[in-house]
């Protein structure tokens, strides 16, 4: 569904991604793990159009017959094509209410009944959001904001959901709950590309994984294999 080939991205004058290639198959959960500064967020931003690559291709196939070069398309259009990006740090609109945040997620949609249906689904998935519907999003706790951000991304009815470190700053119990919900979302047919520093949970949830280090993919494969890899265990999983 998503194919990244040899992506090179500069941030200012720093060479952040030095030829990254990865693939996300339809219906999969793919994890991108690595240390701080490895380039994980940059990769996601290139996919969603916030950053433009210096060279390389990002091919997106929402259906088998159609292909789109994401590196040439504006961010607004990428959202319209069914890719939703849940940014680092959640990025909820603090001054807007929970309900307004969710509705902004559906900004590009015109089908009112569909939107209402999805709002119900999201509230069923994250009941706390229904409770706090009229509260300002800035007053929510970290975990609630994470759920809001994911719910907001789902409001666009995405085919591909990109998440940037959803577990950041959250208590382990809440992280576990969120990852449970992500599995459920995936079961309903949403492909997921997940960036995480919490490698343990990410490898547990995902089908396949890539390990990024200083702008390059150094390892890839089925998640259980990656989890057993010696080097990875030592570097990211706290193994001996």
């Amino acid at each position, binding site marked *: 569904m998503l194919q990244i080939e040899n992506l090179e991205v500069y941030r200012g004058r720093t060479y952040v991604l030095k030829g990254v290639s990865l693939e996300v198959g339809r219906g999969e959960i793919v994890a991108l793990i690595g240390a701080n500064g490895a380039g994980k967020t940059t990769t996601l931003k290139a996919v969603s159009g916030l950053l433009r690559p210096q060279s390389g291709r990002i091919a997106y196939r929402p259906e088998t017959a159609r292909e789109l070069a994401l590196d040439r398309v504006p961010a607004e259009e990428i959202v319209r094509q069914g890719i*939703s990006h849940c940014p680092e740090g959640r990025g909820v609109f*603090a001054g807007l209410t929970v309900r307004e945040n969710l509705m*902004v997620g559906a*900004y590009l949609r015109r089908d009112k009944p569909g939107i209402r249906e999805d709002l119900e689904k999201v509230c069923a998935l994250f009941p706390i959001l229904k409770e706090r519907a009229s509260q300002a999003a800035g007053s929510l706790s970290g975990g609630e904001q994470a759920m809001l951000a994911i719910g907001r991304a789902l409001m666009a009815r995405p085919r591909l959901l990109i998440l940037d470190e959803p577990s950041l700053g959250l208590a382990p119990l809440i992280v576990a709950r969120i990852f449970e919900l992500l599995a459920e979302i995936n079961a309903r047919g949403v492909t997921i590309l997940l960036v995480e520093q919490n490698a343990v949970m990410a490898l547990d949830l995902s089908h396949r994984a890539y390990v990024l280090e200083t702008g390059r993919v150094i390892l890839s494969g089925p998640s259980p294999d990656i989890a057993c890899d010696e080097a990875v265990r030592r570097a990211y999983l706290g193994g001996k």
Partner: protein
Amino acid sequence: MTGGYILQQIVNGLILGSMYALVAIGFTMIYGIIRLINFAHGDVVMIGAFVTLGLLQKLGWPFWLVSVCVLAAGAFVGLAIERAAFRPMRGAPQVTGFIASLAVSIMVQNLGIVFMTAQPRNFTFPDFLQELIRIGPVSFRAVDLVIMLTALVLMTGLILLVRKTRLGVGMRATAENLDVARLMGININRTIMATFALGGGLAAIAGLMWGGKFGQIDPLLGFVPGLKSFVAAVIGGVGSIPGAICGGYILGLAEVLFVGLLPPIYSAFRDAFVFATLILILLVMPNGLMGKRMEDRA
């Protein structure tokens, strides 16, 4: 100093405040969305006044049509300013945007001088608006009533737009976090353009009101009211539309009461007082009354 006199001053202050509020809304919306001060905003007021002069007095068009045209003209000029001064500066340091809008302001003022000459022009509204209305100890002209009501209608309309419509939500989201707004599929360019157009339209109507109220207009008319409206926006808290409205009325009242209640020797210091207030607020209470977080103060 009777109660009636004070009441009269308050009414005058509210009328002046209505005009400041309309212009302040534009400042605050633009600042909220791109974090830059639009120095040329005051000159849109001037353009509104001159368009009114041309259409109403020279061409004799009906009042309602003139108002619509003034709104459109203001929106158009607002868009032009965005395109000329702000879009090319996106990403540049704060001060660069400010200097650019200062340059545009000077250009607009001088274009006005080129086309209109610096001579003040007389401005007369249709007669029915000049009628005097008396309620108790307070008297004002019909035009004053129209100013206040129109201002209230426009402000209510704008607040509804910003709170309830899709465009409004898009504007608020973009103002909060531009990058994440893009991730929602919001077209940033169009949202910013809409902000400038709305602000410009309101400012132009304020120009129409200004001409009607003070009877005389010239190409440099926008400078001082523009700056004062900016002060009003700061008082209310930049980025907050209700704040701008409050700030506008507070400033209008303060200015009129300053002149009306203090001995006449002080009234000439009115403008100095307004700007001293600005400096004080920037130093002591930079978020104003209702403002959200402010960017750099120091």
